[in-house]
């Protein structure tokens, strides 16, 4: 039942990604300072924004889960965080490439945005061992939601603390860079952001569909009283 609308959404995502990539390579002007390498900006920044929004969405779904007790919201929360962690890996890799190209180092400790993102990423990476260490399914869902809410409150606080630790030493590169973006770059950036957001939504929907299908399959098997084939104990939440 999660499969509804999956096809048009996938097509729209592919189209948006194609559009954004062609804009990145053929339309957006070369950066005077950094040249071609700057184009990774159109990949890196949207990924980071979408990943962070995904973490926030995970927290919001977790609140919905605790309020309603409906395990559907827990699955939404789980998949949102899961997808954002995957996006987070991409953010850290593209960020390291960009940092190497423009600052000469793979990792720069005095760039607050970078450091905050790493800490947030580490925080959410503990979501998996945390979740799978709890056996009871109801309790697992409830605790995971509490984790998602706590981590959601932690994200802005962490950004603030890290920024304050550096703010006297370093100017806010990102805040000034984005304000002064030329129109063509801004358009390309916004299209890339939209495409990445669509990609996230589509992948989340795909995963939810897969989970709901495997959950249904498991229930049917149980109804037939057949032993499940190759089921692992580390199953992600089931969706009804």
């Amino acid at each position, binding site marked *: 039942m999660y499969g509804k609308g999956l096809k048009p959404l996938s097509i729209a995502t592919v189209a948006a990604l194609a559009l954004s990539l062609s804009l990145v390579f053929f339309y957006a002007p070369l950066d005077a300072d950094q040249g071609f390498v700057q184009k990774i900006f159109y990949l890196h920044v949207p990924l980071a924004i979408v990943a962070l929004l995904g973490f926030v969405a995970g927290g919001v779904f977790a609140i919905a889960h605790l309020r309603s007790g409906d395990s559907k919201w827990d699955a939404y929360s789980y998949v949102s965080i899961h997808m954002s962690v995957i996006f987070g890996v991409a953010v850290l890799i593209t960020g390291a490439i960009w940092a190497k190209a423009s600052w000469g180092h793979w990792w720069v400790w005095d760039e607050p945005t970078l450091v905050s993102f790493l800490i947030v990423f*580490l925080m959410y990476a*503990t979501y998996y061992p945390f979740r799978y*260490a709890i*056996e009871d399914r109801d309790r697992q869902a*409830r605790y995971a939601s509490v984790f998602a809410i706590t981590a959601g409150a932690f994200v802005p606080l*962490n950004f603030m*603390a*890290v920024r*304050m630790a550096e703010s006297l030493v370093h100017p806010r590169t990102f805040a000034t860079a984005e304000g002064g973006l030329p129109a063509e770059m801004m358009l390309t950036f916004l299209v890339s952001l939209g495409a990445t957001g669509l990609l996230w939504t589509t992948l989340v929907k795909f995963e939810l569909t897969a989970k709901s299908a495997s959950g249904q399959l498991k229930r049917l098997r149980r109804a037939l009283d057949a032993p499940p084939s190759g089921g692992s104990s580390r199953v992600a939440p089931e969706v009804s």
Partner: protein
Amino acid sequence: MIAILAKDLRTELRTLQSLPAMALFAVTTFVIFRFGLDRTALSGSLAAGVLWVTLLFAAILGINRLFVAEREEGGFDAIRLAPIDRTAVFAAKATALLVYLLALELVAVPVFAIFFLDSAAALPPLALALLLADIGLAATGTLISSMAVNSRARDLLTPLVLLPLAVPLSIAATGAIEPLLGVGGPAYDRFGTWLAVLGLYDLIFLLVGYAVFDFLLED
């Protein structure tokens, strides 16, 4: 709430399960830092880092044990049966943890000062910064500990989840402590700002704990 708090403190006083271990751990860690860093005196950021990291890791020892008695002796069921507000448990446990942390620091900070510092002038403002940091650590520690104790990998899970959560707290705490332990006596460079960050952290996680703790005891 008072009853649970009193019970916790009485149990700890009678069994002395966590506190001596925490204090001993802290003192031994100072000795290890003495040789690991090869310094006989510390100041500035190094002093703040050594002090905070030691206190944080010693605190994790206590946080790990915070709910163990409840789990092993069935205290959770008793709490669930009792006609009390569940958030009272959170308040009591967080207060108990805060008392442990303060007791730990009562031992560890003077030892740190004797080992590594030239003067004790920085201790009063240091105590204020540590108190605010402890409140935050007590809030997050209670929250994480109550969840970890019901899992398979409880001793593993608490540090794993708590450490990233404590990063902003560590930034603010060391930020406040660092100028206090500077070479030429205590300075108050951005001290108020960092105290405000610590206070904000305390407030946010006390509120989060208050809001979600109900769901952790349900069954």
